[in-house]
């Protein structure tokens, strides 16, 4: 009996050692960049194994904010992410409602196409045609092209989520409202929308995160327009522009500005984040 207990304890110990090593590996890069953003550029360029700054300075942030245009980048990131989030919430809830509660001509064909194109991903291939299209319609000087393309790319998954959630809401609700004289849109707006809150919260978080983290799409659309860059594009563009290690401190501060807000958002709402992942992926 006693040996069994010791063996049991040993396996738990091994599990903890494994998990703690993994924890260190997962957190190390984040700690490195966050703590590094308070180091002087000299200290960063010196390298070494030290994680904590020798002298703790805030100057990198002031420099990034005032000289390196990061105030603009932050505003652009907030603008893009909020607009994409609002757009996806409106479109996915309206379309999900229509697909779930109404039969109309070509319904299954249209829905099938939406879902099919979700899987047929052509990666970087579609960037060029969309880029040229946005030039033709003069959208390339604003951020609207980025916003509309982001919404268009993400909508199918979210329509799928809303439709799935709608199927759990009893149809009697709609029917009762219709008897009371509520129109099709009125039922959506007054009855369904409030009931969709849980799934819409997940969609809001995931779409905000997606847009905040997007890199290649805004990179392409702001190539000739540095003032419109979001944080991701702004900070990574310094890597290619600066000679050698000249701007490491700015890049560390900029990376932290991009990473930390989204981590805080995640820590406050982790339940929605993780459940959203599984609904979207396993069933999608």
């Amino acid at each position, binding site marked *: 009996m006693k040996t069994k207990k010791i063996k049991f304890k040993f*396996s738990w110990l091994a*599990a*903890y050692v494994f998990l703690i090593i*993994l924890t260190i590996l997962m*957190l190390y*890069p*984040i700690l490195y*960049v966050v703590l590094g953003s308070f180091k002087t550029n000299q200290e*960063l360029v*010196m*390298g*070494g*194994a030290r*994680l904590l700054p020798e002298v703790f300075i805030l100057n990198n942030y002031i420099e990034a904010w005032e000289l390196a245009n990061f105030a603009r980048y932050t505003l652009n990131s907030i603008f893009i992410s909020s607009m994409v989030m609002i757009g996806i919430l*409106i*479109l996915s809830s309206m*379309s999900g*409602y*229509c697909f779930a509660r*109404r039969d*109309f001509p070509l319904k299954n064909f249209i829905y099938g196409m939406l879902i099919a*194109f979700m899987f*047929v*991903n*052509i*990666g*970087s*291939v*579609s*960037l*060029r*045609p*969309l880029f040229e*299209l946005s030039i033709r319609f003069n959208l390339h000087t604003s951020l609207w092209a980025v916003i*509309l393309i982001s*919404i*268009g790319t993400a*909508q199918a998954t979210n*329509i799928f989520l809303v439709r799935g959630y709608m199927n759990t809401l009893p*149809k009697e609700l709609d029917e009762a409202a*219709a008897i009371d004289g509520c*129109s*099709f849109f009125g039922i959506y707006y007054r009855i369904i929308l409030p009931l969709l809150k849980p799934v819409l919260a997940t969609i809001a978080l995931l779409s905000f995160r997606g847009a*905040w*983290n997007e*890199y*290649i799409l805004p990179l392409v659309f702001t190539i000739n327009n540095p003032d419109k860059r979001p944080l991701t594009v702004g*900070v*990574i563009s310094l890597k290619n522009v600066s000679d050698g290690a000249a701007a490491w401190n700015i*890049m560390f501060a900029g*990376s932290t500005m991009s*990473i930390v807000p*989204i981590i805080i958002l*995640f*820590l406050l709402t982790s339940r929605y*984040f*993780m459940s959203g*992942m599984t609904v979207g*992926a*396993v069933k999608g």
Partner: protein
Amino acid sequence: MIALTSAKPKNSMKSAMRKDNLTVWLMLAPTLFLFLVVSVYPFLWIARYMFYDYNGFVEYYIGLDNFRRLLADKLFFKSIIHTLEYSFYKLITIIPLALIVSVLLNSKLKGKNFFRTVFFVPTVISAAVASLVFYFIYSPYNGILNGTLNALQITQAKIDWLGSANLVMLSIIFTAIWGGLGNYMVLFLAGLQSIPDSIYESSRIDGANRLQDFFYITIPMLRPVMKVILMLAITTALKDYQSIMVLTGGGPAGRSQVMFLYVYQLMFGNENAGGAVQIGYGATVGLASSLIIALITVIYLYLSKKMDD
């Protein structure tokens, strides 16, 4: 709905339905518009430009020249090999690792919520910015990886993690595992939670130990979920190029060039893909790359179905 409408006189029912149908189409209009523009239009566009030589300003119809070039393009074949290499090593590491982690975190371990949250954190931040951070970490002279190895007296060399042809894939794959582990952990956890506890309880009564539980209950019960997760992992890995773009841009000397990065560089011009903007040829390579991914997906689906029989 049927109960309601049949109670009304037929005429008003019809007109109400017609009005509702108009509402439906109006509510779907923005979605359909964006779908046509963002998803369908690029396909038609590419179907046309495959037959053109186009640099963004002037275009010439060149028939099948792009396809002839594709068959002789060493860089494209290299990029296929690298894509497969990257996907293979990423998958054989990340899937077992995520499975082990999720099994541990599905048990009655103290602090499991803490670990779950920590392991998920890398997946919520921008993969591009995370790659930039790894670019700093891997830096031969100023990076903390070499700094740590030097301080621990493991080596005094200034290892060029991203500049050496032997190491670059390893460095990229490590970054990808760091960024993706949390996703697969959460997916496996969802699958594990669908296995009823009663099965484990009865196997305990039969005297099975934890290892036997894992191989004879957990793995077989996870098979349907595993199939979906693997499919997701395969298609994701084959399409990855953002992180490589930030870390190496395909270098050194094309050693980390993958299919969709090559397409991107052809479409927008980059010295790693010949320098000039070559949109027509980029469209051809893009189509070929998508077909390769589709083919691999179909083979996977066929094999996983055959294994079931």
